């Protein structure tokens, strides 16, 4: 699943370890999500969205297009 995590992290000048600590996950998990190797669980996706003050679908893109 594509996502904007790396961009959002870079905008805040956070390292992967910094983001991982704020999300209470491992740095490897952040790296795997950023590179699209791992999809976060729903609770983690909510934590990510809350941390960046955005909605989940503004961060993650499952490639499906929805009509209004």
């Amino acid at each position, binding site marked *: 699943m594509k996502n904007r995590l790396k961009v959002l992290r870079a905008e805040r000048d*956070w*390292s992967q*370890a*910094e*983001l*991982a*600590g*704020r*999300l*209470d*996950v*491992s*740095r*490897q*998990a952040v790296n*795997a*999500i950023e590179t699209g*190797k*791992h999809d*976060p*669980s729903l609770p*983690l996706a909510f934590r990510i969205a809350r941390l960046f003050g955005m909605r989940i679908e503004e961060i993650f893109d499952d490639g499906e297009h929805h009509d209004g």
Partner: protein
Amino acid sequence: MMESIMTDRKTRQVGPGEARSMARRRRYFTYVAFGGLVGGIAGFATGFFDQGDGNLFAGDWELLRLPPALALVIAGLLLAGFLALPIYSFRLIDDYQREQGLIGYSGGYLGVMAGFPTWAALYGGGFVPAPHAFGIFAIGFVSMCVSYLYARWRL
């Protein structure tokens, strides 16, 4: 140049997230060290205090002799190392690490499920010695490690 980089690293403020990440890594390495210590003590005690001629690798269990009290202690350590600690670790790690761990355990399970009957069939044909408990354990353990490393590499 190198000196300035090192100075930057020393003086750079560690954010709250990085501090939590470092604490997480410390917890992880403490857990690994403790698990290794428990396994090491159990293995050493089994080998050191064995009063018979048993050998784990040869599988001649009937020759293995331990003082009963020590056997109970070792059994407790093994249950802690192979059952309680892994279950506890699953509560410490995140979803990503849990996925890798589950792939590792699945690989170990499949290794035993496929390994034992295959070994037995080959024994029946006279190709290999008879299956024994430590060999089955080793198949499971190696399969688990290989599966886990594969998951770490691919996922």
